[in-house]
């Protein structure tokens, strides 16, 4: 197969390749939103085991939460775009119901045409345009929390709690404390440590009264028998 037209002028292509990286605050914010949405989705999935009536109730709740969060997201994003990013990372969870909708992109790889995998299996190392120390801390915190999340997803709440405690000890001034503490409640519930989970959940509500992880925390506590 030939390509009769020449490619775009390389100098012009460089214009498109020269796109600067996203500010580290935006990167962290999007990551927080994404992980919050995934956590809420996973919590709903876990709640779905209770039965069909529970699922219907959860669906209604998700709709209400999504509606309320829409307004919150608008406020948060407006604030983020109109003033310098605050020191505290804000998690936005607007897309709670979105993962339920089927995406329309997929690939049907042809057989016998293998290529080396490109997905990193270990700690991420994405570039960042932000201050190195801050970006580095974010990366380190993410790695630990991702580890905890994976442990939780694989049914190992003990390891998840261990990683979360490691995070707490390692970062006296964490950027992702809200995400860590929310995950802590979920892990305690899965570990069957219900009293601690309730206590931590109460502390979480007091410390982060407006948290958009609240839905995930509440959902975890509601699953306590």
């Amino acid at each position, binding site marked *: 197969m030939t390509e009769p037209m020449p490619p*775009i002028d390389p100098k012009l292509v460089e214009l498109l390749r020269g796109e600067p990286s996203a500010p580290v605050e935006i990167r962290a914010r999007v990551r927080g*939103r994404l992980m919050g*949405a995934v956590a809420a989705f996973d919590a709903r999935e876990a709640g779905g085991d209770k039965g069909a009536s529970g699922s219907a109730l959860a669906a209604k709740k998700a709709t209400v939460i999504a509606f309320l969060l829409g307004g919150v997201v608008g406020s948060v994003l407006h604030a983020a775009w109109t003033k310098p990013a605050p020191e505290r990372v804000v998690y936005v969870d607007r897309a709670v119901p*979105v993962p339920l909708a089927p995406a*329309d992109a997929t690939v049907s*790889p042809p057989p016998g045409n293998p290529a080396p995998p*490109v997905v990193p299996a*270990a700690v991420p190392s994405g570039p960042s345009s932000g201050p190195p120390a801050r970006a580095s801390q974010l990366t380190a915190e993410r790695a630990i929390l991702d580890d905890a999340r994976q442990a939780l997803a694989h049914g190992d709440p003990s390891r998840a709690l261990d990683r979360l405690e490691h995070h707490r000890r390692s970062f006296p001034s964490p950027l992702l404390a809200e995400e860590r503490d929310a995950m802590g409640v979920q892990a305690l519930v899965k570990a069957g440590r219900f009293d601690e989970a309730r206590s931590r959940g109460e502390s979480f509500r007091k410390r982060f009264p407006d948290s958009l992880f609240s839905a995930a925390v509440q959902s975890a506590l509601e699953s306590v028998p």
Partner: protein
Amino acid sequence: MSPPSSRPPPDLGAIFDEHFDYVWATLRRLGVRDADREDLVHEVFLKLHSRISDYDATRPLRPWLFGFAYRVAADHRRLARHRVEVLGAPDDAVAQDTPADERVAAREERDVFLAALDELDIARRALLVMHDVDGTPVPEIAEALQVPVNTAYSRLRLAREDLAARVKRIRNARGGR
């Protein structure tokens, strides 16, 4: 639909950290405004999450990821209230240490190119971005966009022709050289 892979699905956090900048830049190259990019990059990764079990780890990830970005950008563009934005600030892509007349010429050339690119249908724009900017082979583009390989080649040729014609027209309209 891809066959189920025997490998465990890749970790979303790792994919995000590795490819966030790529998705961020791709949405811009597809004409998404700065003000909309944060929401859309979030949407791309959410859609990816919902289909992550379909991913075949023996295949390159970026073309697959581009497919999500393309569809999110295309859906966004279909909404009448969303308008695309010409790439780049006025002086951000022309080296300041070049002579003034060359800077002016380069800037004009760039403006014409970006205006022409901005006029393109997003499907053609996507092919140019994917192939000429990202360097993705056409067969992989065909996979990502779910079109036959010959169709992808044909569309790439048409996209280049279309872009060249628009550059010429805009240059003439501006009294260009």
